[in-house]
């Protein structure tokens, strides 16, 4: 049984993650999910791969708290958060969030909240590898 909150180098299967969420309750009527993947182009530059670094202990602790907050705030049945580390190539999966609830509004709103919070609160950094050199991404605002 894999944990609901993970950071890992290897890829993940959305079907597996969602199947796991669904087994939690026969009351589940809605599963919303968000998949972030590596684009081949960013800030006007071609990107061949992305390297991720993290403060792993703090990232996992923060993701665990976020998950519990989302379950309470949006009356979710369950939620999963998986973020990859290391090197991902253009087109590869980076982050996956899934939320389950009895009805669709809670699942969709909880999913959106979690990806927004992840970007804001979780100590992970990405470096884009391009033909012009390597650039750490500086988030806007």
């Amino acid at each position, binding site marked *: 049984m894999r944990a609901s909150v993970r950071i890992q180098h290897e890829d993940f299967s959305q079907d597996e993650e969602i199947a796991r969420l669904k087994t939690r309750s026969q009351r589940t009527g809605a599963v919303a999910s968000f998949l972030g993947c590596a684009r081949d182009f960013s800030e006007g530059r071609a990107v061949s791969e992305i390297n991720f670094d*993290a403060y792993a202990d703090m990232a996992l602790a923060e993701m665990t708290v976020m998950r519990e907050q989302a379950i309470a705030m949006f009356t979710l049945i369950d939620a999963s958060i998986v973020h990859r580390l290391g090197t991902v190539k253009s087109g590869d999966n980076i982050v996956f969030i899934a939320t389950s609830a009895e009805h669709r509004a809670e699942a969709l709103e909880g999913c959106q909240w979690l990806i927004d919070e992840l970007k804001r609160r979780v100590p992970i950094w990405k470096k884009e590898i391009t033909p012009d050199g390597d650039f750490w991404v*500086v988030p806007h605002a």
Partner: protein
Amino acid sequence: MIKVLFFGPVADTIGQRSIDIEYRIDMSLQDLRESLAQRFPQAFGIVAFTAVNGVQTRNMRQLLADRSEIAFMAKFSGG
């Protein structure tokens, strides 16, 4: 001993992922930050967040305990 951690762009700029600093009584987070910012001015130009033992804090006056783990971090860009 205080363990100071660096990640991502901060670690790249400093060229190290961690530094051990001798613990001193009454050492505040501000004291630690100032001495490191003098040694690594470029890296600390991009430091946006500070964590003490894995928890973010903005209270730079807090005193550090021996064996604390401090992280000086650039803006997050995960996801």
